[in-house]
């Protein structure tokens, strides 16, 4: 596991952003649609990437003392 996936997914999202920029039909709220789609994609990607990276090489491990045998 490495940070490579983050870049890969980033590239996919960048592609989606580009697609949404070019594929939104021309209308008077074109700017609104483009902005909404791209910002949504960026926000979703950032949130995922930050969460993924934070767990990539964790400095602490989950610890508990109430484990049952079948858990």
């Amino acid at each position: 596991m490495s940070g490579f996936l983050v870049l890969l997914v980033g590239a996919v999202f960048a592609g989606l952003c580009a697609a949404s920029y070019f594929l939104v039909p021309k209308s008077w709220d074109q700017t609104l649609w483009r902005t909404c789609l791209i910002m949504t994609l960026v926000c979703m990607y950032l949130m995922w990437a930050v969460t993924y990276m934070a767990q990539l090489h964790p400095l602490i491990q989950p610890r508990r003392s109430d484990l049952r045998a079948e858990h």
Partner: protein
Amino acid sequence: MATLPAYKTSASGVKSSLFRSEEMTLIQLYIPTEIAKPTVSELGELGAVEFRDLNSETAAFHRTFVNEIKRLDEMERKLRFLTANIDKHEIPVQPSMDSYLSRRARSPQEIDEMDDVLSQHEYRVVQLNESYESLQRRLLELTEMRFVLRETSAFLQKATQHQDDIRHSIDNPDAPLLDLEQPRSAGPSLDLEGGSQPQNSLAGLNIGFVTGVIPRSRIATFERVLWRLLRGNLYMNHVEIDEPIVDPAMDEPVNKNVFVIFAHGTHILSKIRKISESMGATLYRVDEDNERRQETMIDVMTRLDELQTVLESTDTTRRTELINVAEHLSDWTVTVKKEKALFHSMNMFNYDSNRKCLIAEGWCPTLALPDVQSALRDATEQAGSNITSIMHQLKTSKQPPTFHRTNKFTSGFQSIINAYGIARYREVNPGLFTVISFPFLFAVMFGDFGHGILVSLAAGWLCWRERQIEKGGIDANVRTFFDGRYIMLLMGIFSIYTGFIYNDIFSLTMHIFPSGWKWPEEGRGGTQTLSAEQVGVYPIGIDPHWHGTENMLLFINSYKMKMSIIFGVIQMTFGIVLSFFNHRYFKKAVNIYCEFIPQIIFMMSIFGYLSLLIVYKWLVDWSATDENGEALYNSPPGLLNTLIFMFLSPGSIDPSLQLYPGQGLVQVVLVLVALICIPWMLLLKPFYLKREHQRTQQLGYANMTTTTTRISTDSLNSDHGGGAVVTTESESEEMHQDHDFEFGEVMMHQVIHTIEFCLGCISNTASYLRLWALSLAHAQLSDVLWTMIMKNCISMSDGMRPLAMFAGFSMWFTLTVCILLFMEGLSAFLHTLRLHWVEFDNKFYEATGKLFEPFSFERVLKEEEQ
């Protein structure tokens, strides 16, 4: 807010978007007087022109159409009177039909007719009301009289029988005037004397009485006052009237008592009368003679019957009258309001008496100019006139109003921004970006899959049923939620996503993907503390194995704090970048070189670097070893300390706290760059402006002011003849400000600006930590609710469980909705609001504009409603 139709694309290719406010044009209209009203009415229906007040120095009561407005005010008063009456009688009002009829401007004759009709209706209703009221007062009197007669006859009869006892007590100076007990007990023994007295009259004893009716609530006070003032020289008796009596003056049922007061002497009697009247009692004369009382009673009864019939027929007539009115009421109201708005607008125009036309000036969105043209043409055609109105565009240096064309989806977001301030004309509008960034930052704080679904469902229902809800009328409390339904919908949807990432559904987890952690097999079931082993990375969201662990908060806090900083830095940087678009659009190159560039460098070299360090620290496997088994890296250093020591001891890095080789040098460079940015921001612009100013002064342009010449007519000057008078309107005032250069002021402004920015960068970044704090609070509260209620219910014994589950679930659900959705949602909303208004907007948003308020009937009518 915006009522203009949506345009596909305009002829000139100018697109309308939320990014900048729409381009505006100052237009001048020459409207022939004959068709002035239909034309302005047509423009009011279109709602695309904001008229400028060309008579701002004229007082309101000196304007051209004052009399018309006064008359309409009077008509409005009549309408209000009729509406109040209709409401009182709960007669349904026919909704106004938005047909051609109500759209058309009314001719003066029609208004005259309407005024006549209104006056007649008002007169009739007033008459009917008056007669109804007087009849009712009469009815009240008669009813009370009836009660008085009925109740007093008992007293009076008793009193006549016992008059001798009374006499006895008067003869005895020690005895009280009246004793409630004594006469009865002494009655039989003194009966002999009673028989010997032939004249059985109270008058013989000079004892008179007062009868009347008083509200029951006052009876105790009344009795006490009488007792004190007359020193007990009276005998009073009162009886409750069973049914409440409706008082026409108060218009509500009042409980009343009938009273009889016996007293000695005319002086005292008149005193009693005065007191009674001042206490709000109504007095009725009752004859002491039994037979005459009977006669009066019969008389009263017949008159009561008659009165009832008359009252009923009056009421029916009034009702029919009001029903007639109700049929047209809303049409009339709409017409009067429109007419009034029309004349108010026309009062802002200049009047050219020579050419018989009105001259109007106003702002209009450039995109709507063709519509205004066609509206003018339509009005001329409909009026059947062959003189057309003329429109032409004016060049001006005045600041046009700001107009964002919004729809039902964006208007909520735009109003969030407008609440902070109206954008300067053509300034970058944060409203566009708020549409996504607002729900997203909200969701970062509110993240919970389950709560997100609940919010989305509620908001989605409001959006789905919006037509029906709007038609059915909304009360003020729901209004706020209804207006923000699309904001709520997006907030809910984003909360579902962030909740999924946080792996929180009502504080529980979803185990969808294979976990990245594995618990060791040995040592389970005991009291030993076990640590999991990493076997992978959970692909989307937080690993469910963190749930319920002892050190979960340690991990989650660090993750959420870092995430908050990263989001904050990105949003603020975005804000600074937007300021670049402003500077470029307004052609302020100096602001790009002296503000935007140093700002972005300053931001990046400190907080951009911090964000990079965060990501770098995540990406490095700090426990990695080389082939000899020796650690490649030292133990991971704290980022906060790294940032602090970057400033405290630049250049020197403790090897045990090093993140990467060459860190010292990089940090020295960054600190230096950041430090250079401060004087750059502070000094460059003022000195540049000073040099520019000196240069223009040397060239001799400093005192030049621009004057624009335009044709405009002044009604006061029209006496001169010769039609329009060419006046030059100096617009030097606004231009003058640019040339009025004072170095001290500019410097001061720049100092404040620089300090605000540099300190702001630090405090604003810290302020984004509220994302973490609120998110933590939300997750913890949700966890507490679950463990305290639902978990306890589930772990109950089998017999109790169904009941406990039912009670527990309803309690848990109510608390979830009240506390987590409403209270927590509100607080997350407010914090998001702050992040947008302060942290994001202050990077680029000047908000010094004026809102475009077009003359539109729709607005006029809507404002009246609210």
